């Protein structure tokens, strides 16, 4: 992966959830380049830090959702996006797949799932 840092960007509008993810990632020994609550914030942080992996929530504050952000990031940065969602609705799943997600995790995410998925995303880069 050209020019991407070995770090993770966490995007979730729930601060506590973002914190929990941060702990899980840190426990894996990976650096966090930032946490974002909105789509725009996520894109700008991604463009600034160029993380290898983005943990992306689908529902975000503001007009745009995680898929908008993920598409922009995929386009401009090229990070691997792992979607994390509480929803398993078919419509949501379909929306997610309009992008090219690396993986899809459902909340609550166990340590085991988080570790294996993020590790795989890092390795694939």
């Amino acid at each position, binding site marked *: 992966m050209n020019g991407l840092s070995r770090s993770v960007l966490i995007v979730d509008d*729930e601060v*506590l*959830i*973002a*914190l*929990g*993810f941060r*702990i*899980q990632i840190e426990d894996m020994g990976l650096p966090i380049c930032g946490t974002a609550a909105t789509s725009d914030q996520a894109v700008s942080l991604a463009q600034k830090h160029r993380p290898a992996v983005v943990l992306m929530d689908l529902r975000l504050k503001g007009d745009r959702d995680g898929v908008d952000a993920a598409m922009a990031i995929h386009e401009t940065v090229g990070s691997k996006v792992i979607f994390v969602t*509480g*929803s*398993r*609705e078919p419509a949501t799943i379909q929306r997610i797949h309009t992008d090219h997600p690396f993986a899809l995790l*459902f*909340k*609550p*995410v*166990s*340590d*085991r*799932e988080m*570790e294996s998925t993020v590790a795989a995303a890092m390795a694939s880069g």
Partner: protein
Amino acid sequence: MRPSNLQIAWSHALPHIVLGAAIFVVCLGFAMIAARLGRATWLDAYLTSVLYAKTNTALLFIACGLGLAAALTISRRFALLAGGLVAAVGAAMIVEHLTGVSLGVDELLVRDLRSPHNPYPGRMSPNTTLAFLCAGLCIAGIKQSWRKSWQIGALELLAFLVVALGIEGMLAHVDGIERAYRWSDYARMALPTSVGFLVLGTGLMALGLQTFPCTARIPLWAPALLCFTVLMGDIATPRGVAAGIAYIPLIFCSLWFTRPSTAFIFAGIATGLTILAFFAKVPTAIAAEIFIANRVITMGALWFTAVLVYLRRKTEIALTEALDQRASAQKDLAKREEVFRVTFDAATVGKVQSDPETGRIIRANRAFADMLGYEPDELVGRTGWELTWPDDVDIEKSDYKRVLGGEIHAYVREKRYIRKDGTPIWGRVSATIARLPENGQPNIAVAVVEDIDERYKFEVALQAAKHDLEGVVVERTTALEQRDLLLREVYHRVKNNLQIIDSLVLMQIRQLADEDAKYALQSLRSRVYALGLVHQQLMGSDDLQTFNIAPFLEQLSNNLMRASAGRNISLSVQAIPLNVGLDFAIPLGLLVTELITNSLKHAFPNGTGAIEVTLAQSGAGNIDLVVADNGKGYPGAVIGSCQRKGLGSSIIDGLVAQLEGTLLVESAHGTRTEICLAAPLRA
């Protein structure tokens, strides 16, 4: 036997003939008596020789005439009486003639003073006597209940004998009475007597035909006897013409026979007899050529008559056949008309015939009239359009015009009629026009009308009900969709909250240094994860209420194995597919979580082993959950409860109780926990 056409044609004339003959004979008898008793000068001068007859003859004629009239009209008993009297007198005189004794019947009522030279004054001649005997028997017998063919034949024979004896008497006078008497004593008969017998015999024959209309016919012996009589006369008289002409009645006899050619057969027979008579007694008194000419003229007259009779019969037969044909054709037509009328009138569908140009109804059946509330007669003369609901007239008229124009053969349309009470009624009309075969012009318009009112109303009601139902279904579907949306939202929020709880616990763990405390909180995370996983499964299910527990157990168990990281512990999950709801899945998931966590914590101090999770059907609709390890086990098996009093065991006991299950723990070779549960009811 089928009566001949002539019998049919003359049947109405027969009683008149009989009655006429009876009156004539009675009058003749009275005239004879008057002539005998009167002795008037004028009578002597003009009529004595004409009406000369013996008194007995006159009396018997009167009796015969009365008997004949009685047989026809009044009573057969009187006919029997009169006929019997005549026959008795006749029989008595025959006995006198044969034996020579006098029985006292010669001068029955009146002394015979006119025949002084007669050895037996008043006694009738043998022929006359025989004729009266025949006539008397015939009169007496004809109205008795004799119906056998020989009886009928005998009666007819008697009647014919009377005629024949009369003819013989007349023939004798043609040749001169002296000659006749010379020819045979028996041939003697006064001229009026012979005429009387001719008429009486004719009357008897007519009575026979009238009495036996279907069986009586001129039998073959009648012409044969006539031939014999005439031949005798012919031989006895040398005149030729006069005798031969007497064959003409024979030719007329053929009128009674079925085949018209019978006339020629009879003409042939008569011709043969005429020729036979010529050779039987060649005349000497007259020149042979005159004699031959006479015979030729006779035969010509016979054959001319035969041709006329033949042609008459031919025409009659042709006419009869034509009449028969017409009658049978009329019968067929009437039959067809009747069949049509019945099918038209009795049909259960409405049928209407109308004039194709004006549309006026010519004929309508009961079913159609009933449908509209009219009587069939009331509809005649009205047009179909008057009876049609105004909104439906125009479109049907266009159909009708197309049929009238020959564009289409027929049309079928569902339309409304107007009932007599003004209400509409739905009918399905099939209409066509019958055309004349010769020029194809419209002849009659024919319509068949079915009453579909009930059906139509039913269909309309059905459509309305269907529409209502569709509305309800849409409403319910919308409500269900809204419910689904709401449920997904709730599950989503539950999971988000669980994730928040997980994050909070995770942060808490960071703050702790004590390993036991950290372990306790990790256990808590596992339990929270189990709850989250249940909701995740529910969200992915079709009905948002139940899901298959097998993949759930697999995912749950695999996640728990994270705690065994760095150790060589294998896991196998064998679960039957089973649809479960939230109420069953959460306790079961927590149970598996606790049991696996326990095994991982306690069973494998040396870091190697295997854990098996099994969910299987057991008998009686129960299911068995077994979590077994091959670890060290507990010191001494405890059945029914967990050995240690920790949080995990409280949870296990509580959940088993909640699920109304039973718990069995063995720890002979590793720990085996078996939980028997009632299978969840299908949602």
